[in-house]
């Protein structure tokens, strides 16, 4: 083999092995993604129709666009501006503003995703209001979780990957609701169980939102 090519490969390998945490992070990232697919597919109690596969793909598309939007919202802040924020506003104010903005942004992204997915790929949606309510509530959950872990990962080495690694295992409870609710919206009538799940998802959003509100000042302190 060409010795120069070999030493280049060797350098790549050494670079990869130098930081074991980044390597482990990539592995966890990959495993989390596999688990996500498994859970989406399993909670929908699949193999009943092909619609569930399309729904799983739809939710993964939405999920990763929201992850990217939240990650970039923290990377856009230069270090100097954070100092200014610390001086000018309270941590609660800061996190609430981030949550509200990221939530609106996520809902917009999800709606654009839904319209394009619906027109280009298409699935048999029978109960649009229920599905849209699920989209909005799950965007709320995604936003809260990824904003919190984004704040946690802010200022660490490779914050972008870390945000995903920290957040992906945490959104699985929301996925359990999403899968059940999107299966319910394949049927025209709204069942009591669907309403109950929708309410529970709302309660879950509020609860983790409250924890973010309480915990964020501790991250903010420097």
């Amino acid at each position, binding site marked *: 083999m060409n010795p120069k090519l070999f030493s280049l490969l060797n350098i790549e390998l050494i670079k990869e092995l130098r930081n*074991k*945490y*980044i390597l*482990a*992070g990539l592995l*966890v990232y990959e*495993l*989390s993604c596999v*688990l996500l697919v498994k*859970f989406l597919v*399993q909670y929908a*109690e699949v193999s009943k129709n092909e619609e569930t596969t399309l729904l799983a793909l739809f939710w993964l598309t939405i999920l990763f666009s929201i992850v990217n939007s939240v990650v970039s919202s923290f990377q856009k802040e230069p270090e100097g501006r954070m100092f200014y924020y610390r001086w000018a506003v309270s941590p609660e104010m800061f996190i609430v503003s981030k949550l509200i903005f990221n939530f609106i942004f996520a809902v917009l992204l999800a709606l654009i995703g839904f319209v394009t997915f619906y027109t280009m790929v298409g699935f048999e949606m029978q109960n649009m209001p229920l599905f849209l309510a699920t989209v909005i509530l799950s965007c709320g959950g995604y936003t809260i*979780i990824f904003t*919190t*872990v984004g704040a*946690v*990962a802010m*200022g*660490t*080495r*490779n914050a972008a990957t*870390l945000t995903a*690694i*920290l957040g*992906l*295992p*945490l959104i*699985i*409870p929301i996925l*359990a*609701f999403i899968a*059940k609710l999107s299966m319910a919206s394949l049927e025209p009538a709204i069942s009591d*169980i669907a309403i*109950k*799940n929708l309410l*529970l998802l709302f309660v*879950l959003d509020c*609860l*983790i939102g409250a*924890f*973010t509100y309480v*915990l*964020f000042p*501790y*991250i903010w*302190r*420097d």
Partner: protein
Amino acid sequence: MWWKWLCAALLVYILLAGMLIPMGSGISSVQPYVFKADTVFTFSVKGVNTNFSAQSNTQVWFKAEQKYFCASKIEVVDAEHLNVQFGISKALSEPLKDNNYDIIVNNDKDGTIALREGVTLLPGSVAVVDSTLPTTNSCVVEVDNNKSAAFAFPFREILYESIRNTFYHVPMWFTMLFLILLSTYFSVRYLQTNNLQNDLLAAAFGSVALVFGILGIVTGMIWATYTWGEPWPNDPKLNGAAIGIMIYLAYIILRGSVDDEIKRARIASVYSIFAAVIFILFIFVVPRLPGTDSLHPGNGGNPAFSKYDLDSHLRMVFYPAVIAWILLGLWVSGILVRINLLKEKHKK
């Protein structure tokens, strides 16, 4: 110090008692497992660790819908094999909606043992009807003792000898949950006090919880392979376990990605609390959502362990096992804390 001795002694005890106490007696199979009305069949019953003998007063019944039917003739082949002649007339079997019959054997040594739904009555009759079969049930059920005299773990179909995994798999989860709660508690303490020692404790408990989680998954997967037929069936509890492991892996990677120890302590504590809240919600709320089933005992219509499988002999090993594994978890965490303290000292 004394509790480390207690832990070691208990671990030796559960290893010895868990492996040496024999399996109780039970019925493993019946051949043939289907039969038809109106003729006498000879069933060969295979027992495990049983003491069938002509002297031990062996009786056999077939049971469907709370009704007992006596076997017409019982022949003891050896201590673990019986040949039982049994037939049921159409007049007796037709009113019953349940066509699965339990086989119940009682003798003086083994007590009462049974194979639930061991044989199935096929619809339709046979060509030559045996008219000597009784048309009314005159079976008498009278036993001297129900309990086996032997000191043994209960015999359960499907589980068999693997019931001993109760002393390893189940306590692993208890220990993991206990350590996660401790880790979360010390994370909260760190945010309250800013004392780095609390963060060190939280990190150690988190890492050891991860190890116990992985052990729990491995023991569970081995168990599931032999009882449920596949290592990873669809089950909400398995998902909870997988999530717990991913969360604490992420926690360790987070800790490894920050160099400044005060900053590391602060963000790791915040993540640990946030993650624990979601994790605990997930394992206690999601399995109770409407329309969720689980293969685990105590979920989705399956009877809980305490109701069914935890008899007094199992308890004698199971409770010490829970204490022993939790103590071991604390012990290992303690060592980890001391190693980390030494490392910090060495750095300075």
